[in-house]
């Protein structure tokens, strides 16, 4: 039972957790430098900073996943040395990671059982799981398999798993990056409740409005160092951003005039059977995208966006070549490499494992998508200088922060890896760019850089297709917005006409007007 709330266990003048001069070094690189931070019970404490500022590094240290190079941590005033997460959990520290760690083919209960080291029987554990999830209004059916669940539901598993240990201190690393606004609102209710129970929460997010609304304290990191601890409610989003970046964030600006030219990406009545039982069937998808244009695709995740990406990229082939036309050439039957040679470039949603091979160097990951067209391969041999040059150029153009010139992809912070991937593709000067969730988990400054790059690419004549759950993002950069629902794509609306209400209706599966929907298919 969860009735013994931590507040009862601890109220006093010592902080729950205190770090003193905490430092983490990777070689010569300081990911965390001399951090003094206090976490108090009954507070939601925001941890803010640009991509690569060291937020994940700090919380991984506190959770015992990595060892600090210097400094110490105190738990309830006593020195704490953690040799692993199980020790952190034993003290009452829980964590929900930036990237989920769930097994798709196991049930909710099985996944939770794997994360809990205890003597409890599986049956008792399942019962407790159901109970905890009900108490906190995080409904979960323990018997469902994970693949059937939405991203929001998957995150619930992680949260419930952490709550089942009755933590005094819960860490959430960018929990709302992947949630829809509704799901995020639900999460905030839960967090408020946990706070009221006397628990401490450390909350990492790039969404400053959200932080202002939810958090009592904010610690801001820049380049691994603490810049300040402040009350986010007394700040503006702009002043918080300024502290994070050390300068004002540039506004994204659309070029004064953008001319649309010839159709560069045309999709004609594309249909695709799902290739696994977890997938969505695409039906009658048609649109035309001209050079100089940005088309946004909105929609709740899991409505066929992944399948559409696979069909456009050529990771899945269409039966009829004419369903996907790139630069005037029927490409539905062509491999991804051939499509790249036609001038297309792709940025998938998942950075680690799809967009990059995590354990390989950046130069090798440059080769991954650049081998077909950029002189990186000569007579079957890899030109390492050319791959490194791509890394350097992407690093410079997109300000990718990393510990050394050519590190493993997995060692980059989430946002910096995204900048690298986007940079890698844009530097190839594509005629068509298909990009999914371009700024998931990317800090405000970097997100502005990426959005600006997409606008510039379109201004230079490329056709850009952006899939995003973030309606503000689409409103900022897209010329037209279409909505994906259950494998169907709505008729695109001009961004000026695409009110939140209209998009919301389409995202929920209703059509705007019967007549409009009727001719949408034939368009």
């Amino acid at each position, binding site marked *: 039972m969860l009735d013994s709330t931590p507040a009862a266990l601890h109220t006093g003048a010592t902080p729950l957790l205190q770090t003193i001069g905490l430092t983490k070094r990777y070689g010569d690189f300081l990911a965390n430098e001399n951090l003094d931070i206090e976490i108090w019970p009954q507070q939601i404490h925001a941890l803010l900073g640009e991509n690569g500022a060291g937020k994940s590094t700090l919380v991984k240290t506190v959770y015992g996943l990595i060892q600090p190079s210097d400094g110490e941590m105190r738990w309830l005033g006593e020195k704490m040395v953690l040799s692993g997460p199980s020790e952190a*959990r034993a003290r009452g520290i829980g964590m929900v990671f930036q990237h989920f760690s769930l097994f798709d083919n196991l049930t909710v209960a099985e996944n939770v059982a794997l994360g809990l080291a*205890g003597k409890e029987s599986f049956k008792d554990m399942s019962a407790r799981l159901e109970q905890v999830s009900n108490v906190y209004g995080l409904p979960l059916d323990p018997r469902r398999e994970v693949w059937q669940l939405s991203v929001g539901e998957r995150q619930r598993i992680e949260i419930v798993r952490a709550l089942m240990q009755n933590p005094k201190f819960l860490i959430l690393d960018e929990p709302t990056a992947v949630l829809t606004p509704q799901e995020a609102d639900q999460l905030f209710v839960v967090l408020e409740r946990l706070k009221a129970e006397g628990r401490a929460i450390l909350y990492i997010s790039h969404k400053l409005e959200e932080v202002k609304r939810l958090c009592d304290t904010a610690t801001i990191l820049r380049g691994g160092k603490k810049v300040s601890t402040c009350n986010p409610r007394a700040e503006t989003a702009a002043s918080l951003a300024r502290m994070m970046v050390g300068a004002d964030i540039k506004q994204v600006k659309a070029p004064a005039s953008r001319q649309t030219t010839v159709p560069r990406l045309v999709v004609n009545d594309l249909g695709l059977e799902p290739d696994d039982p977890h997938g969505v069937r695409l039906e009658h998808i048609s649109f035309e995208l001209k050079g100089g244009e940005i088309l946004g695709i909105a929609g709740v995740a899991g409505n066929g966006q992944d399948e559409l990406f696979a069909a456009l990229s050529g990771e899945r082939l269409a039966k009829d070549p004419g369903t996907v036309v790139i630069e005037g050439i029927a490409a539905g039957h062509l491999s991804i490499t051939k499509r790249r040679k036609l001038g297309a470039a792709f940025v998938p949603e*998942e950075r680690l494992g799809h967009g990059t091979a995590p354990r390989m160097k950046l130069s090798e990951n440059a080769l991954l998508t650049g081998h077909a067209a950029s002189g990186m391969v000569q007579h079957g041999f890899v030109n390492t200088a050319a791959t490194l040059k791509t890394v350097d150029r992407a690093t410079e153009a997109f300000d990718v922060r990393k510990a050394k010139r050519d590190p493993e992809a997995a060692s980059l912070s989430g946002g910096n890896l995204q900048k690298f991937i986007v940079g890698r593709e844009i530097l190839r000067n594509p005629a068509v760019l298909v990009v999914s969730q371009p700024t998931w988990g990317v800090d405000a400054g970097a997100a502005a850089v990426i959005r600006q790059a997409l606008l510039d690419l379109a201004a230079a004549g490329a056709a850009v297709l952006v899939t995003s759950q973030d309606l503000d993002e689409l409103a900022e950069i897209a010329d037209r917005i279409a909505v994906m629902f259950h494998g169907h794509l709505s008729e695109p609306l001009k961004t000026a006409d695409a009110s939140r209400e209209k998009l919301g209706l389409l995202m929920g599966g209703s059509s705007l007007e019967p007549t409009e929907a009727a001719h949408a298919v034939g368009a």
Partner: protein
Amino acid sequence: MQLVLEKRAERSNTIALVSPLIAIGLTLVTMSILFAILGKNPVSALAAYFIAPLTDSYSLQEIAVKATPLVMIAIGLSLCYLANAWNIGAEGQFLIGAVAGSWLAVKTQGTGAGPWVLPVMLLLGAAAGALYALIPALCKVKFGASEILTSLMLVYVADLFLDYLVRGPWRDPAGFNFPTTAEFDPVATVPILIEGGRLHLGAIIALVVVAAGAVLLGKTIKGFEIRVVGAAPRAARFGGFNSNQLVLLTFAISGALAGMAGIIEVAGPVGHLQPGISPGYGFTAIIVAFLGRLNPVGILIAGLFLALTFIGGEQAQIAMKIPLDVTKVFQGILLFYVLACDSLILYRFRLIFASRQVA
């Protein structure tokens, strides 16, 4: 109190290098216990195994001779394993290569054929090994059959086929009914490198294979494809690399190398085709591949080490009457520890005491 395996946040590169050494250490400890149980003095037994063979030139040459097939096969296997294709049947590909090459040797016997015979034999061996390896690869790609099972089963087919040939059609008429072909002609024999010694041209070929493997993996786009397909399959597909094609390619290369190793063994140290030409090279090479960290240079070192165990085993049998099969036990234990220690690169052991407060 319980013992759990916990994922490391960072991959430990130190352990990646040290892990084979830990495995060897643990194997030696286990073997000492085994020797003690057999009633032998562990120290002198280990000395017979690992020190004695290093002290005379005959044994040193013999180590190189034994390492030759091990290294050649293991280089091929490492390509398969890196690409997540599990070729367990190198032993069969080795035997089929030996048979195919021997065919030419038998056919040209006593015909006064020129020096073209040996090169063509080597090519035949490689081609046959590759084709034989393509059987399980195609079954995997076309029908989804487990290549682990099919490649392993084909070992026994190859073994019995060889047996049939030397007992039937290819038996040496002047061989007193022994199941063996006639001794190959000099043009069908791998030349010796040191006059009066055993070291043969195959050792050079093995070194070339190591160098070629290193270049392939480190410098070419194909090598990159092989590595990505194994390390991150979804990213590989995104890169436009076809994993089925790479299964076929790596199986073909490893089959070719095993087949060539087979014919080199027959046309070199053995000199004729007979059953039992391999003391399990194709299987031992699996250990070599993993002990060498699937890295060409590592494989060269590991190949020499395992060759040492073969020679040491023979010497220990002669000197201390330790059964030859102990060598196989040794190799099995070594593979077990190598794989176990490898999990320490990504995981670590932790003892948990039941101090957790229960909610």
